[in-house]
């Protein structure tokens, strides 16, 4: 088991540590258990402790680290802020973790072409902060955007509430610099303009969950701030009315900038904590935003107001100013933090469904909750059918945790049944890999494996992710996994702080 080196690999381990220290400096390498333990979790419910953690400062260093690790037969993986929710940045097989927090420079701002070139460790929101003075922002806005890094966003193809109209991370990345795991080769794909003029390699690497290459530089699109924004809070008596409203808005071809739903139970927990102004006695609220040219915003807001009222909205409130708008969004983006106050374990799902199936799916989720004995909250991106059912459990109670996992699998199964998918923005990681056969055949896995092996032939980069056991690689080193081998948690760990902001 990694972490408990056998004598033969202990020397190799020591040698690698020394080589890394020589390359990066002593303060850029962590090897003591008390340091490594900080990197064994992310925003998910999984764990995986690295054998070593290194903090590269340049692309050349990343390349050299890849070569050193290969020499010592040590698997590697990249990590940003560790806010991911699917275990993508966990060292499932132990190994050397590259944390990109020192590569956090914005290299170029090109407002004429609406592009920024950034290093992977730049925090998502810091891109917007660096460009807002010129009237721009970076559109993908995961709820973790205050802490999550662009490198992690690229690996997971992160979404967020405002990706409904603007698109997710992949729609905003035009070029990448990568270090290949096979030999540390540094390559560039894509172009500033965006068209590949070859195969769309950028499109392949974004969202590959850190299994094909390490990303060392990213060219992103900067979006012009809209001329007008209107934020509406529609209050409903029932979840059904709210979800029918969403289906109707979609069917009428209206694409708001954001369309978020919070059910009554969840919003009460949030309101208690944030005081965002959500009505405590409502069954569900929709947080809707329209943006663009003033004339378009006015007419879209009017149309949305009308649809909400047709579906028995009790009230449709328009945020009067930025302060009220920010408060409503603060409530939405801190939902998971609020829920963390009432339960030690939070399991956030990420299923996607066709939007017309929203009402029936939300009803089914409640049934599943009842069946497994959980109150399942829902706070999610309703407009694109991206559900976030939240199962709260007691971290110390393994039986309860196993039950939570079963309920979750049941919900995901239903999503697939109605034509949906396993994950909309969190990624497969090590969390959902065993559910992959719900969607993909053996032939599909063989094929994906060939694409994987084209870049990561020895499975030295981020092993044990995406592929279900037996279809992937690097499994001889795999640590036990919750879904596979239920293991009691001996002690109550504190709720991971990383999950507070995560979506």
């Amino acid at each position, binding site marked *: 088991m990694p972490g408990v080196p056998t004598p033969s690999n202990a020397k190799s381990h020591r040698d690698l540590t020394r080589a890394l220290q020589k390359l990066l400096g002593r303060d850029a390498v962590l090897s003591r258990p008390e340091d490594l333990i900080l990197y064994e979790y992310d925003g998910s419910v999984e764990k995986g402790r690295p054998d070593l953690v290194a903090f590269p400062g340049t692309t050349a260093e990343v390349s050299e680290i890849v070569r050193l690790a290969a020499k010592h037969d040590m698997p590697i993986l990249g990590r940003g802020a560790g806010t991911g929710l699917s275990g993508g940045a966990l060292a499932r097989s132990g190994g050397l973790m590259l944390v990109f927090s020192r590569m956090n420079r914005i290299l170029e701002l090109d407002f004429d072409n609406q592009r920024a070139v950034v290093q992977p460790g730049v925090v998502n929101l810091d891109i917007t902060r660096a460009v807002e003075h010129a009237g721009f922002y970076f559109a993908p806005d995961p709820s973790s955007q205050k802490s999550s890094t662009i490198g992690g966003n690229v690996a997971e193809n992160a979404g967020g509430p405002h990706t409904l109209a603007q698109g997710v991370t992949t729609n905003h990345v035009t070029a990448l610099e990568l270090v290949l795991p096979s030999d540390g080769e540094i390559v560039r794909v894509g172009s500033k303009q965006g068209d590949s*003029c070859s*195969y769309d390699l950028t499109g392949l690497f974004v969202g*590959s969950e850190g299994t094909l290459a390490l990303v060392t530089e990213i060219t992103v699109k900067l979006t012009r701030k809209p001329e007008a924004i209107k934020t509406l809070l529609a209050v409903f008596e029932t979840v059904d009315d709210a979800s029918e409203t969403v289906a109707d808005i979609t069917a009428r071809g209206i694409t708001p900038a954001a369309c978020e739903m919070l059910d009554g139970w969840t919003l009460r927990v949030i309101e208690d904590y944030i005081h965002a102004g959500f009505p405590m006695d409502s069954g569900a609220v929709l947080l809707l935003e329209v943006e663009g040219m003033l004339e378009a915003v006015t007419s879209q807001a009017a149309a949305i107001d009308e649809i909400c009222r047709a579906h028995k909205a009790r009230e449709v409130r328009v945020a009067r100013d930025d302060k009220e708008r920010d408060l409503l969004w603060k409530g939405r983006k801190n939902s998971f933090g609020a829920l963390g106050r009432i339960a030690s374990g939070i399991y956030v799902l990420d299923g996607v469904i066709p939007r017309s199936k929203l009402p029936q799916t939300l009803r089914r989720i409640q049934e599943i909750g009842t069946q497994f004995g959980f109150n399942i909250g829902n706070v999610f991106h309703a407009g694109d059918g991206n559900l976030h059912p939240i199962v709260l459990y007691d971290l110390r109670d393994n039986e309860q945790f196993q039950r939570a996992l079963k309920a979750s699998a049941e919900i995901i199964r239903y999503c697939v049944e109605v034509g949906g998918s396993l994950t909309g923005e969190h990624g497969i990681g090590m969390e959902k890999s065993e559910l992959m056969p719900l969607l993909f055949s053996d032939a599909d896995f063989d094929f994906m494996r060939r694409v994987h092996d084209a870049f990561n032939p020895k499975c030295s980069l981020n092993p044990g992710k995406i592929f279900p056991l037996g279809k992937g690689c690097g499994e001889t080193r795999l640590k036990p996994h919750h879904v596979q081998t239920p293991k009691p948690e001996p002690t109550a760990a504190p709720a991971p702080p990383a999950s507070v902001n995560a979506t």
Partner: protein
Amino acid sequence: MSAVTDSAVARLESVLGANAIFVAKAANRELYALDGVSPTAFAKPASAEQAAEIVRFAAKENLSVIPIGARTKLFCAPTPARYDVALDLTALDDVAHYDPADLTVSVGAGMPLAKLNTMLREQNQFVPLLVPYYTQSTIGGTIAAGLDSPLRNAYGTPRDFLLGAEFIDGNGAQIKTGGRVVKNVTGYDLHKLLIGSCGTLAAITRLNFRTFPLPATTQGFLAAFPDYKSALSARQKVIHSPLVPLTLDVLNAQAARLFDGHTNGTAPIPEIDSNHWYLFTEFSGNEDLLARYKRELAEIADQSQAGDMHILEDSTALAAMAARLRESIAHFQEHFAAPVIVKLALPPAQHTQAATVLQSIADAAKLPIAVIARASGPILIATSLQSEHSASGEATDFPISFLFAREILTLARSFGGRAQLISAPPQIKPAYRTIFRESLASERTLARRIKSAFDPNNLFPTLDAPAAPPTPPKSETSQSPSPSLAAAAQTDLPPSPPTPPPSKQS
């Protein structure tokens, strides 16, 4: 080299059963010719399963396969080194799923694009792909060709709205990727690799799209500018304004002739002046929005020294112009002798420098050059090599055309851009492809890895031109060390070495 023998046909028929359609009649083979190379046989499977069966058979028999739709964009594929079986996928034209309320659709790759949009129109929706040969093209061929649509300014490119796909890999396995929901990060985004793959990776059998509501009332604006600087400066101002038009293109006069001589009832399309550059844009919305577009576009154009301005409110005339713009590549192919069409992927602020170079090439080399500079996309460049063919059809002046290509490559490289050959006469196509691949740097080796993952047996067309071009441009450049076209055009170039046409197989 393998060929499809009669016995192979018989065996394939026995594999596929009586219902399979597999014909090897000589007369029909010509239909599937690519750069003058005809397949030995063609197969028109009735289902994806049958198509996979054919690919498996081909893999076993070591036959090369080219997946084919309506045959309108074969020009984008590399000249085949081997071409045994044309895999005609036009029979795979079913609608597997369309739920208007979800704004998603899943169709067979052989579905004609126009037919798809006619179906979607009933629900006031569409797939925003206005590509050349629109009325004939299949959706599979459209995605495989990856050609530009003017609507990308508002809707993006297929990579933004292709949700998933099914395809047959080089082993004949049926593979599924993505899904049919609008947001999905389950597994690798393999379907994005199919866009622009020109049949080199896989045979696409099904495609899932996000659909969009049809735009409201659409109007247009055409303004003439004294030069490219003012036209492009107006375009930059629109890009950086709150306006979000559906299309936004700058065209030189040569390109704007697309619109020439086309009248629709009472609304003639404005005449094109050969000295001018043009900004053409379409926009939609309610009355207030339309009024604002027209007002602000006129203001912007005015600030940039625009001459004639035309507000295009007549929907028939505007639709005719939009169709002409959509068909620009087809138009150049039809109206230019020996047309060479190139895509230059540069970010918009660099379009001005590019236009400077293109203008000087046109002036110095006396080449007719049509330029369409798309706001959110590349620059499309079309030229005619007509003057370079002697009466006997011998291509005596290829050095000029190669230098034209080199010049565009230099342009791409100097701004971190990319260049891609869209179409060229078969004689010079491999050479041009070789030149433009130089703009791809390290991507070329990664692309090869992708190719061998998709198609381990090299069943589908090879990515790179198979044979060395007849006259490698190197010999030219070594004779003129600074390969500036302007310079080349002014000096007498040494006669080019003999340029035999590439050996064609039949």
